[in-house]
């Protein structure tokens, strides 16, 4: 859980000149952005890009190696798996699964967590106590075990995974957002809204929410990596995206028996895909965090 620990620690302040440079686009993580945009592009146009059907293979063409290995052919660029399905096509469609699950789960967790965080922080009192104790309890559960537990209850399907991940990770948002709201609600403009006769809900919606959106976006980008890893893990364990859907975690799981006999392409490719995507999301999230940190921007 090193990633979660990283989220909770405060960013260290870069030296003063870094702020000036930060105003321009220098330091912008170009390669991670290109990778993420690339994956997104592939996910959207999977139907056009994939050379084969990802779910149906021909058993005659089982365990073909990538084209540059002996026995490989240009027909299956990255080889085939135990059912003769094209690895490249499965990777391409797997990108779609990862993107859809990652983004929707992050949004779901973000909406739930941000809403509860704002309510908790702004209303205070017993509402705050209730939500925060719930969050504490939630955070005390090991996230992955909890997700596995939920998955075992609701059964495998892609949308179930989204809901499970949302339920597992909303607490991160709730905590961070509540903290921000606590300081925001002491700001003069919130007091002015109170004396101007705005209701609590109007203040939360019009004055608090727009001020915490930045943090929610940063947190969301950082959570994207965590969520994708968890999805892959669940799929790997066989309780995530059900076969024959092509998910990267599922591909890893399918390929693991063949790894020992030298069929490395079944695991290395999806493994690299997961790693590249998560790393890109994390680097981009870190950059955004520094960039959008109100401490550094100081309006």
């Amino acid at each position, binding site marked *: 859980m090193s990633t979660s620990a990283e989220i909770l620690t405060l960013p260290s302040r870069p030296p003063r000149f870094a702020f000036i440079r930060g105003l321009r686009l220098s330091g912008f993580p170009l390669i991670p952005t290109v990778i993420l945009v690339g994956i997104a592009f592939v996910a959207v146009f999977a139907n056009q890009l994939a050379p084969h059907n990802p779910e149906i293979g021909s058993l005659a063409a089982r365990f073909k190696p990538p084209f540059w290995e002996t026995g490989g052919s240009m027909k299956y660029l990255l080889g085939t798996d135990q059912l003769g399905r094209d690895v490249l096509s499965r990777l391409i469609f797997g990108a779609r699964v990862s993107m859809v699950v990652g983004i929707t789960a992050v949004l779901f967790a973000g909406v739930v967590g941000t809403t509860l965080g704002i309510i908790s922080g702004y209303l205070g009192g017993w509402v705050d106590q209730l939500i925060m104790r719930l969050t504490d309890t939630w955070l005390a559960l090991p996230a992955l075990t909890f997700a596995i537990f939920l998955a075992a209850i609701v059964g495998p399907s892609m949308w179930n995974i989204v809901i499970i991940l949302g339920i597992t990770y909303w607490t991160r948002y709730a905590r961070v957002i509540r903290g921000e709201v606590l300081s925001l609600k002491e700001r*003069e403009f919130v007091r*002015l*809204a109170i004396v101007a*006769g705005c*209701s609590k809900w109007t203040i939360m919606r019009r*004055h608090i929410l727009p001020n915490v959106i930045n943090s929610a976006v940063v947190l969301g980008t950082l959570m994207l990596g965590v969520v994708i890893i968890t999805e892959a893990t669940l799929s790997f364990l066989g309780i995530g995206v059900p076969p024959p859907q092509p998910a990267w975690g599922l591909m890893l799981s399918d390929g693991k028996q063949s790894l020992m006999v030298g069929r490395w392409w079944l695991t290395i490719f999806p493994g690299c895909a997961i790693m590249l995507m998560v790393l890109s999301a994390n680097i981009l999230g870190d950059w955004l965090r520094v960039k959008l940190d109100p401490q550094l921007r100081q309006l």
Partner: protein
Amino acid sequence: MPNAPLLELENLSTHYVSAQGTRVVRAVDDVSLRIHAGETLGIVGESGSGKSTLALTIMRVLPPAARIVSGKMMFEGEDLLQKSDEEMQKVRGRRMAMILQDPMASLNPLFTIGNQVAEPIRVHEGAPRAAAWSRARELLRSVRIPSPETRVKQYPHEMSGGMRQRIVGAIGISCEPRLLIADEPTTSLDLTIQAQYLNLLRDLQRAHGLALIFITHNLGIVAKMCDQLAVMYAGRVVEQGPVSRIFSAPAHPYTKALLGSIPRMTDNREHLTAIEGQPPDLSSLPPGCAFAPRCPMAFARCRVEAPPEVAIDEGRTARCWLAVPGVEAEATAMRSNVA
């Protein structure tokens, strides 16, 4: 009742209670005040004398630890203390408005000026966006913001301090309230801007027939702005009445001391006059008059029994034994005995 006051506070008390309920801070204690339409009431006192808590009490926007323990607040014939939170929301910003201590920070950095000036209009009157915005432009013009057409589209960080202040003033009067409470609105401004702003407030008051409650610790501003004055000490109003009469003949020793501590250009003295001692701890007030420990005129009775609020002449009261008829002699006698 043609001459009924707009706002009348009767024996109002607001206490802060600690979480365990063991410490009670009497921030506002037995305050009775009245203000008529078109009048300006100045409330002065040292920091911690309960001025701001009084303002928050009137608006009913106290922090959770504070309790209004007793009293009545009659505003346009209704007791505000009997109103539910929802009903109060409709009063706030519409019938009474407030300008906060730090107007510089009172604007939301994420919204345009127009949005923020239009907000109370939209909240209270349900006015459509376009109508609210044209009102916002009018309001900005009335607080002398140059070229309001472009300013409404700008953000708070594009404005100077004095402008932001005037914008906050515009938000205050946006729904044409009957009562405006200004809680030290000029402390964060430099002197020239301060004077401009005070003139503006006075003009707005005249134009709209507003009642203005002006909270400050600057007696110079009071002299310039206010008709009525209430002097607060340790949560109580120790003296109140028309400004001119209080300035010419203060009845309470604390008022005298406050007036005496204004530095004057004509003074030849080397040091500034200060009131000796510290304001009392509001959670453990002395049994008698709260000012007695610092009062040069105090005598035995002041230390055991709190003085009542006595009328000294028409529209004027003081909380001091010396103002009670017949007690003066007693005090003189005591003093000569001691001597």
